[in-house]
């Protein structure tokens, strides 16, 4: 965290403070206003110097602040690796690549005996200790994007409504066939109503790991190796098939607007409305 440049800035500012404090001690008592100014400079410099310890990342942006907005980083937070299986972040000379491994756990504790539950906890504890490099294990609950599903139901509904209207116009049509199509229309309409009304969510578990490299290719290759190791370790420990996440699926774990896609916003807001009323 505390880089060389941060230490240098601390040393310079603290040095100014110390010099001011020493000069203040040498000033004769008759020049007390000058001594007061030096004391204030020394104390302010001390506080600013200490603040560099944790807030060095803010200093530059605070100095160049416009309209009370400090821009720490104006670039995109990441970009996708050309291979589509990692995201890449640049920090100075270093390049960081992060890969995501999906951990599909379909078993539920309700269908486990006590012994199975105990064993599952132990296996999970073993799973989180497979890496010596920091690895993030996350459980993410998010609304399901039902856009495609709703579109499919809508298409079926339209199709059955057209059939129903055609049959209704046909005087020779079998009344039983007409009833059947009417039932089909009702079924699709009910399904559409229920899908839109209920709040569908999914829980996904994934692990993410980062590798540092001198170049983009190096970081991406290193993280691919690490992700393979992690996926193999998780698969062997939990007896599942852990897979490396690729493409847009990764964005669901990173970007809030992918986690809550526009089509599900009304659902999330509906729940929020229920809470506040």
């Amino acid at each position, binding site marked *: *965290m*505390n880089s060389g440049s941060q230490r240098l800035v601390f040393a310079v500012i*603290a040095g100014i*403070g*110390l010099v001011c*404090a020493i000069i*203040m*001690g040498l000033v004769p*008592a008759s020049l007390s*206003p000058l*001594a*007061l100014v030096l*004391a*204030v400079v020394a*104390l302010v*410099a*001390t*506080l600013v*110097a*200490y603040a560099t*310890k*944790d807030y060095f990342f*803010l200093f530059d*942006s605070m100095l160049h602040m416009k309209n*009370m*907005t*400090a*821009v*720490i*980083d104006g670039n995109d*937070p990441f970009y996708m690796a050309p291979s589509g299986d990692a995201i890449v972040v640049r920090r100075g000379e270093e390049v*960081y690549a*992060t890969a995501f491994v999906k951990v599909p756990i379909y078993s539920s*504790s*309700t269908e486990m005996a*006590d012994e199975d539950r105990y064993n599952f*906890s*132990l296996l999970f*504890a*073993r799973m*989180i*200790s497979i890496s*010596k*490099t*920091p*690895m*993030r*294990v*996350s*459980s*993410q609950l998010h*609304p399901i994007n039902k856009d495609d599903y709703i579109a499919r139901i809508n298409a079926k509904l339209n199709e059955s409504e057209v059939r129903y209207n055609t049959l209704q116009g046909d005087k020779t049509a079998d009344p039983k066939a007409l009833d059947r199509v009417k039932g089909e229309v009702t079924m699709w309409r009910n399904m559409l109503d229920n899908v839109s009304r209920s709040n569908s*969510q999914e829980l996904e578990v994934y692990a993410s*790991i980062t590798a540092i490299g001198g170049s983009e290719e190096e970081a991406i290759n290193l993280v691919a190796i690490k992700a393979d190791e992690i996926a193999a370790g998780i698969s062997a420990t939990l007896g599942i098939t852990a897979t490396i996440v690729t493409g847009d699926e990764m964005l669901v774990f990173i970007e*809030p607007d992918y986690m*809550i896609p*526009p089509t599900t*916003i009304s659902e*999330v807001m509906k729940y*929020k409305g229920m809470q506040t009323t």
Partner: protein
Amino acid sequence: MDEDTVIYLSISIIIIVVVIASSAKFGLVGTLMLILSIVAIFLLLLLAFADFLIVPLFTKILNITMVPAKNFTITSGQDAVVKYSNGIYYATGYLTANIYNYIFAAERETEEGPELTAAPDKWEKAIMNIHFPFKFNMIVASEDIQRYRDELETKRGLLEFQYSKEMQSTNPNPMGLENMQRQINVLQTRIDRIGEGEKPVNSIMYVESTAVGVSLKEANDALANQLSELQTIFNVFDLNLTRVIGRELYHLFKFNYLIPGLKELTSTFDVQK
């Protein structure tokens, strides 16, 4: 307190002490210098141990917002990261999730079977009661077992030496002896657990939730509701859930894109072992 904090704090206090020592000869102005020095020490201690109070207060009063990355803004209260996309505000906030029970469990000699058995059930029941997007994150890194074991054995050896020295003294302190014995037992339990195949793991746990709104205020209010609901729901795990405010929010936001090395993690956050 980590090594860096001790060094930075010592240097800063030395400068203030020099100012205090030199202020005596300036009479009334000297008294003013003394008062300013005391205020500086107070602010310094706040910066060192409670910066999450002072810095967000400063940014809130001056209405300073920060941009941690393109399209993202850290609110002036430094309690949420907001993304504005397609006319919708996505506010993300964080809760620390230190499992104190986990630490106590490591210090307990009794078996923790019932807790491990109950954990999956508790987790599922908690999840069933959550109706908004959230993430439970654990950053974990296992330790070098041999090094960790050596560390524990060294600590145990030192305590045993102190214990025997206290026993041989003419007037042994029973409270001190009991305390040392307890610490020796804790270390012994940890050594035994490693012997049983358990790996020591460094971990940082935090909860993240995202709320949406058509205005910034709406998204922030919804986020506050969601986070307080998560605090209630996760109480079942005996978790100490505190809302993250201040510079740690920026670092947690960055963890979505890269996970730094253990050294950087430990200098930014308290790591549980």
